[in-house]
């Protein structure tokens, strides 16, 4: 195998290490890519897949290790170098310009033009058409991209990357938003591309499709490569893959004591997360930490938005302590005693230019009587929370942008404690927070539950879900696919439900 492969290695990565503050993103990663193979990468969120891809595309530099591309050694790549070496990436998010046509998008930045800078439209269109024809797909090169379906837009990205005549094509979850038919087309496309001699690195959460197309499968876990499998008969044991993606010792992780769980405080009935998805129902008890697991795009975000009244809800009922409440805006949900700690602290969680005081009291100004604020009283109240939550800030007047991620998150939490809500929804409670502060946040969450607050925690980090949750709901395709209790809350279980290997006997997509 090695002798046969030696001449056709396109990329070889040796002992790559990469550390971010507080996180070992990659450690001792060695990976190789053959000519015209489809090499799939699987792993949980945060396993190091994206970091590794970023090293191949030159947007990150490894701390140590070596890259060999076409037999030449590099300490690191730059985005420009990576492109010249024939490496192209198709990202999940949209990078097309919606107002421009397919052909214009394909050649954006490298327009076919006369020497006076005038664009040769016919030539652009013909060149685009040629690539489209070679892929045997239907796409009008003159159609504006915004008029195309998401699947067709994905094709535009593929056509665009092929226009660079790459030798390596990296695809990051190209089928994430597709229905079954479109997935089939994309998979066929990928096979076709590899048969032309292009090597493909394919990242996906859909294990079935990986089993179908992969020549080799590499499993990432905690920044390391667990194993690389050959997949000659295109029918891999998905349960084995799932086990390999997990297998972490959860013991080293934060351990919480069991707390007493009281009566039901919130009941959600007949809630539709999307127009065409089935209704869901669940309840939340006093003192309970309810974990919500699911992949990106599973409906987790919609669930949070619906509970907090951020979208006009499609349908559904929420009962708080048995009484129906009508939640149509964040204002309604806050009044009902619900607080949300958003996923994006900087965009939606904080006003970065404002002080710790102003960020803390903004949701709860109505605690104070009348229209005029007693600034001394306010400062005293906030100082109380600074002490209680151990927020490290030189002064309550400090602008929050100067605080560390963990302390910023505590300010957001202080806001809802000041407002004295009963139900707290955490969306990715420890995103962008270093390890030490994470543990502090976990401790705070557990203490809050002990004090009788009810907590909904959406998280991509399975260890934290497992360590903290009393119960876990797994969300997939806009519905709750299963509820896990006590001993059932394991990484294996969550992953197999979230990835859809175990589908609870219900219809497959």
């Amino acid at each position, binding site marked *: 195998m090695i002798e046969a492969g030696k001449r056709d290695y396109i990329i070889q990565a040796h002992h790559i290490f990469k550390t971010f503050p507080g996180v070992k993103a990659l450690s001792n990663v060695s990976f190789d890519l053959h000519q015209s193979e489809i090499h799939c990468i699987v792993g949980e969120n945060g396993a190091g897949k994206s970091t590794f891809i970023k090293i191949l595309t030159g947007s990150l530099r490894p701390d140590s290790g070596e890259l060999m591309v076409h037999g030449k050694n590099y300490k690191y790549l730059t985005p420009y170098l990576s492109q010249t070496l024939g490496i192209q990436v198709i990202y999940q998010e949209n990078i097309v310009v919606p107002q421009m046509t397919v052909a214009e998008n394909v050649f954006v930045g490298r327009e076919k033009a006369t020497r006076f800078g005038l664009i040769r439209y016919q030539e652009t269109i013909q060149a685009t058409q040629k690539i489209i024809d070679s892929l045997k797909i239907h796409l009008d090169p003159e159609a504006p991209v915004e008029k195309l379906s998401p699947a067709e837009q994905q094709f535009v990205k593929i056509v665009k990357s092929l226009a660079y005549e790459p030798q390596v094509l990296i695809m990051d979850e190209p089928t994430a938003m597709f229905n079954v038919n479109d997935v089939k087309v994309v998979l066929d496309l990928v096979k076709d591309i590899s048969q032309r001699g292009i090597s493909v690195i394919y990242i996906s959460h859909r294990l079935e499709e990986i089993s179908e197309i992969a020549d080799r499968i590499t499993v990432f876990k905690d920044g390391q490569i667990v194993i690389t499998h050959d997949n000659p008969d295109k029918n891999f044991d998905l349960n084995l893959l799932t086990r390999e993606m997990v297998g972490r010792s959860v013991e080293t992780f934060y351990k919480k004591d069991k707390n007493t769980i009281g009566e039901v405080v919130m009941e959600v009935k007949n809630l539709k997360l999307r127009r065409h998805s089935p209704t869901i129902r669940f309840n939340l008890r006093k003192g309970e930490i309810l974990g919500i697991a699911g992949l990106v795009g599973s409906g987790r975000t919609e669930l949070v938005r619906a509970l907090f009244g951020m979208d006009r809800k499609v349908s559904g009922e929420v009962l708080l302590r048995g009484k129906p409440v009508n939640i149509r*805006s964040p204002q309604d949900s806050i009044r009902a005693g619900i607080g949300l700690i958003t996923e994006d602290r900087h*965009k939606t969680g904080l006003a970065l230019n404002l002080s710790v005081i102003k960020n803390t009291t*903004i949701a709860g100004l109505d605690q104070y009587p009348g229209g005029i604020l007693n600034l001394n009283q306010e400062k005293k109240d906030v100082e109380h929370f600074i002490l209680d939550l151990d927020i490290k800030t030189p002064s309550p007047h400090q602008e929050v942008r100067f605080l560390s991620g963990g302390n910023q998150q505590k300010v957001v939490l202080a806001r809802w404690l000041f407002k004295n809500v009963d139900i707290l929804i955490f969306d990715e409670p420890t995103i962008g927070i270093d390890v030490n502060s994470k543990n502090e946040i976990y401790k705070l969450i557990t203490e809050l539950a002990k004090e009788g607050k009810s907590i909904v925690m959406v998280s991509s980090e399975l260890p934290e879900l497992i360590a903290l949750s009393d119960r876990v709901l797994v969300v997939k395709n806009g519905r709750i696919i299963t509820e896990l209790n006590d001993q059932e809350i394991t990484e294996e279980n969550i992953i197999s439900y979230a990835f859809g290997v175990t589908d609870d006997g219900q219809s497959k997509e």
Partner: protein
Amino acid sequence: MMDNPKSDGHLTTKTTNLPALFKNQSFFLLIVIILLSVIFGSMNPRFLTWGNLLAVFQQITVLGIATMAMALLLISGGIDLSIGSMIGLSSVVICTLIMRGSNVGLAILIGFGIPVICGFINGVIVSKSKCVPLIVTLGMNYVYYGLALVISQGLFLSMKGNFQFLGRGRVFGVPMPMIIVIVMVFATHFLLTYTKYGRRLVAMGGNEQLAYLSGINVDRLKIMNYTLSGAIIGLASLVLVSRLGNVLANAGEGYELRALAAAIIGGVTFEGGRGTIAGTFLGVILLGIVQNGLNILNVSSYFQTLAVGVIIVVAVVVSNLEKIRNR
């Protein structure tokens, strides 16, 4: 972010790299104002006389009041470029009513009410259409100016000597406009610093998404704030007609840009959430002193325009020094 929580302490020193002078824009402005006064005074002693300083204050009253409205809007993340036309429209209506023999009190009341309504309309369009307020109010600027032209037919209109107290009266020897502007500065400062309403404005300007997710009815707050600013503009307009005695449709021309400039010089930012009323008022005073000082030194008005432009750009750059450094 940070590995070691202890290291948080040194983060604060980051800002103290800059001289304290630059850190606090209001303080910086105050120094500049004093320096300029000394320079103007040494070149022409007449500048530093009590009479002249009163005159400076007189000249900036309307701008000072209008700038309070602009600051409230900017700090909350909005802007209103139609305030000049609102002043013009209101003045024209007052004079027209008086010239047609209407009751003076009623005319004044209606004249005050018109900018309130204009502000309300601006607020509704801005909040409900989710369009950029800069563009919406730029359009409304033409609408209100057009209305003022239609009503006045482009003619000079007169107050016929009525209602002079607000613009020309004195209380214990202090000119009325000066009293009004000082009261307005304190009132606006109080509103912004010590009331829930003001705090919510600041939060909305700092991060509108956050304000929304904190249970603030963002649309309603915007409409209220535009309406309130309209009322302040109504007051500015009354002071103006009262002082001038006769007006054209373009009576308020340019106030929107000068108010914007004064607020920005005072440390208010375009992005919202930042700035103080004290700084804003110092911005107004600086503009007034430069204009008056250059007048006294017999500098041509062409150069004055040039000077004002330079001041605005320097002020904006100075207030952005920290950002440039931290990049």
